[in-house]
Structure formats: structure tokens, C-alpha cells
């Protein structure tokens, strides 16, 4: 069965693809921190960040359409979180409505928060998309490992990535098996079989985990994951990191 990949375009060859994953991880972290820490309403700074991201996308040769499409996924979540802020935040009233006995007001400050949150999260997701699309997943994990991210996290992430598709396949097969036997079920029954499928999936994953662990033990696993080090910082890494650092610091000095 066909699945989309997280690192679909990671096989491209570009300046960004060639950087050390550690550089990319740290730079992404710095960028996200900078975006998050920028005060509400400093639009010029956001413009600089957007330019940085545009430059990164251009440098990494990722298809713009792909990046933009992927970045849409966060909007439902973000909107769900902040959509009510304009109605509740105190401040200068932009508009007010009467719906029956209910008096609704929208404030300028509230709208500003809404737009800020949306813009900030969009910038961050752009950054993460460029990171994950320009780095092979195993390289990313190597980078995390070498940056001393706790092993447990690295291993969990690795297993998640490896078995996500296996699990999805399994779920799809079970769903097909259910659909081929399921005539005229009412909604309640569908939820019931769905519950069974999820339960079965859990048990199967649990059993698979046991078998994987046995396979790991058989090859000398002792709780420590040892990684053969293939990563090396190069000169472009230094250039890139310093350039990004300057770009992130400049607006802060200019406009704060």
C-alpha cells in the first residue's frame, strides 16, 4: 500500500540538503525561538522572518506548492485554539453585534493576537517542513542522538517512523476486512467495530513489540543504542549558522 512520506523530498541535492543535520536542528530551534519571542505587532520583524524562510525554501529547491500545501495542516489546530480570542480579549472595540439577547464584541487587541498566533505558527511550521523535507529521517535522528537528545526519545521516534506504516497497513487491512463483511450496520455498530479494531491494533502492536525486542536481544542489544558516527561539521555549516544568527539578531536590534 502507498503512503506519503514525511521526508518525501529529502533525496534532493541542494545546499540545505547538504548541511549537517545538527546544524539544521539547532538553526531550526533558534529560528523557532526567535519567532516565538518576537513581541506582538512587530510586523517588520515577521517580514524579515518570512524572507528568511522564503530564502530557505529557494535554497533547498523544494517545490513551493508542496511546502505551502503541507503548511496548511496546522491551520485547523491553530484556528481552533485562537478563534475565540477576539471575542473575549478586552480592548478597543472594532465591531459589536447583538444576537438575540447575546451581546458580542470583537476587539482590536483580540484580532491582533489572533493574527499573531496564526503568523507565528505558520512561520514555525514552514521552518519544520524545510527541516524535515531537506533531511533524511535517519540523518535527523543521528543528529538528535549526537546533540545528546535523550536516547529514549530518539529510539521512540525511530520506532515510530519505522512502524507507522506497518501499523497503518494493518489498520487498513482490518478496515477492509470489516467493510467486506459489513452490510447495513447502523452507526452505533460501526463505532463498536471501530473500537474492536483499535483494541486489536493495540494488542498486535504489543505483541510485535515483544518480537522486535527478542530480535534486538538476539543481536546483542543491551539497552544502549550505539550509533556509528558519520556526521561531520563542514565549512558551509559554519557559514550558514552565522548568517542565520545575524539575520535573526538584526531585526531584534533594529526594531525592539
Amino acid at each position, binding site marked *: 500500500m502507498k503512503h506519503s512520506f514525511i521526508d518525501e523530498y529529502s533525496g534532493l541535492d541542494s545546499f540545505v540538503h547538504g548541511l549537517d543535520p545538527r546544524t539544521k536542528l539547532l538553526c531550526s530551534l533558534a529560528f523557532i525561538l526567535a519567532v516565538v519571542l518576537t513581541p506582538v505587532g512587530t510586523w517588520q520583524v515577521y517580514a524579515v522572518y518570512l524572507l528568511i524562510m522564503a530564502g530557505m525554501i529557494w535554497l533547498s529547491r523544494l517545490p513551493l506548492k508542496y511546502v505551502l500545501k503541507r503548511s496548511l495542516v496546522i491551520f485547523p489546530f491553530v484556528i481552533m485554539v485562537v478563534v475565540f480570542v477576539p471575542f473575549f480579549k478586552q480592548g478597543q472595540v472594532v465591531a459589536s453585534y447583538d444576537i438575540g439577547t447575546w451581546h458580542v464584541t470583537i476587539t482590536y487587541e483580540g484580532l491582533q493576537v489572533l493574527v499573531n498566533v496564526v503568523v507565528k505558527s505558520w512561520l514555525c511550521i514552514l521552518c519544520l517542513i524545510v527541516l524535515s523535507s531537506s533531511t533524511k529521517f*535517519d540523518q535527523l535522528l543521528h543528529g538528535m542522538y549526537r546533540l545528546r537528545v535523550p536516547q529514549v526519545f530518539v529510539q521512540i521516534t525511530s520506532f515510530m517512523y519505522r512502524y507507522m506504516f506497518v501499523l497503518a497497513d494493518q489498520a487498513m487491512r482490518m478496515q477492509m476486512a470489516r467493510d467486506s463483511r459489513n452490510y447495513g450496520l447502523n452507526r452505533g455498530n460501526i463505532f463498536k467495530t471501530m473500537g474492536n479494531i483499535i483494541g486489536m491494533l493495540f494488542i498486535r502492536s504489543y505483541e510485535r513489540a515483544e518480537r*522486535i525486542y527478542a*530480535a534486538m536481544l538476539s543481536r546483542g542489544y543491551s539497552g544502549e543504542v*550505539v550509533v556509528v558516527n558519520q556526521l561531520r561539521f563542514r565549512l558551509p555549516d559554519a557559514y550558514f549558522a552565522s548568517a542565520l544568527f545575524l539575520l535573526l539578531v538584526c531585526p531584534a536590534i533594529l526594531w525592539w
Partner: protein
Amino acid sequence: MLTDKAVEISGLSYVYPDGQCGLKDIDLTISCGESVALIGPNGAGKSTLLLHLNGILRGSTAVKVQGLPVDDKNIREIRKKVGMVFQDPEDQLFSLNVYEDVAFGPVNMGFPAEEVDTRVKRALQKVGMRGYEKRSSHHLSIGEKKRIAIATVLSLDPGILALDEPTSSLDPRGKWALIDLLQKLPVTMIVASHDLDLVRCLCGRTVIMDSGRIVADGGTGIILGDEPLLRAHGLARDATAAGI
């Protein structure tokens, strides 16, 4: 310690944690260089027995591998000697790419990086999978996965290979290719399988297991020629159905 006995098992019993009996009084000695088939109906205890060979499961008495008893002290050495290939390659290939999977054993055994690299390349060469190093395991065909799974243990140069259903879910071409591959490997082999073609081609000796016991042990030709015996243990078509 040099010995010509690859595996020595005497009086081994094993009870599953849920109280179900797994193995009962198993006596089995396998010489170095022998290829032994373990056949028997589902649930006969074939896989359970295999898991005792490298100490994943431990029963009532210690199994001896090349003269070494399987215990905590020897476990590292034993796991280097016994290469365990699991039935579902999806369980065996847990890393993100083929190289890391094949390197997992050697890295854990503490070999230096260059040694690991040569071992990985040699193992992939042996199963005819050079050039697959950077591929991700999930996107390989089942036949390729089986081969890589064998490479993951060959990278430790085991003297004994324990294979659980190596030809299951392979198409005939893939199955014969795998049998050819296994025939070329110069190691002691213990193969649990339902695939009688594989058993005939690969193994000189066959052991039948049923309900956790060994019920027959002998030359493959003799055992597989004994229709009533096979029928009694669910390995051949029922007499009435076959019209005998």
C-alpha cells in the same frame, strides 16, 4: 572449548508464563555442519524451541551451544554464535535503513567502525543485496526483506543459523531463490518450517515435533517417506480425504 556438537539439549521443558506447556522433555543433539529441519503442526513448539537456542527463553535445563551452556555469563558469546532469523522480517528489520539493520549486531558487539563496515558489506554480498544499504526496509519486497533479515545475522558470522519459517509468504520463485541462497551458506542450520520442499532440499535430518515433544527424528528421506507418520501429526492430507 572445541567440540563437534553445535547444539546439545537434554531433558528441556518449558512452560509459558500463562501456564500453557511449551516444551516437554526435549532431547536433541546437533553436530556441527548439520542441517536439521524442525517440522510439525502449528503450535507444536518449533519456534519456542528455536528461541531457547540463544537464550531468549530459558527452560528447565540449560541448552549447550558449541559446548557453552546458555546462561547469563555466556549470553553475549552465544548470541554471536547463534544467528536467529525470525519469521516476520518486519520484526527483524527495525532500523530506518538496511545498513543500520545489518550493522546493528556488529555495533552492539563492539566492533570498530571499519570492521562493522566490512561485515555489513560482506553480509549483504552473501545474500546478493549489495547496493541496498540506504534503502528503507519498509519499502522492500517480502523476498528482499527475508534476505536482508538473514544478512542482519550473517554480519556476526554465526556458526549456527536458526531460521523460523524462512520461506513463508514467499512466491515460488522467491522461495527457490532463498533455498539456493541457504544451500550455499556453510553453517549449521536449524530450520523450523512447514515447507516440505525446503526441508527436502536443505536438510539431511528431520525432526518432527508435536505438542511440545519430539516425536520422530531421522534422515529426511525416511521421515518424509513415512506417510502414516506425517499424517498422524497433521503434516500430510488425511487418509479418508486423500481416498486411501
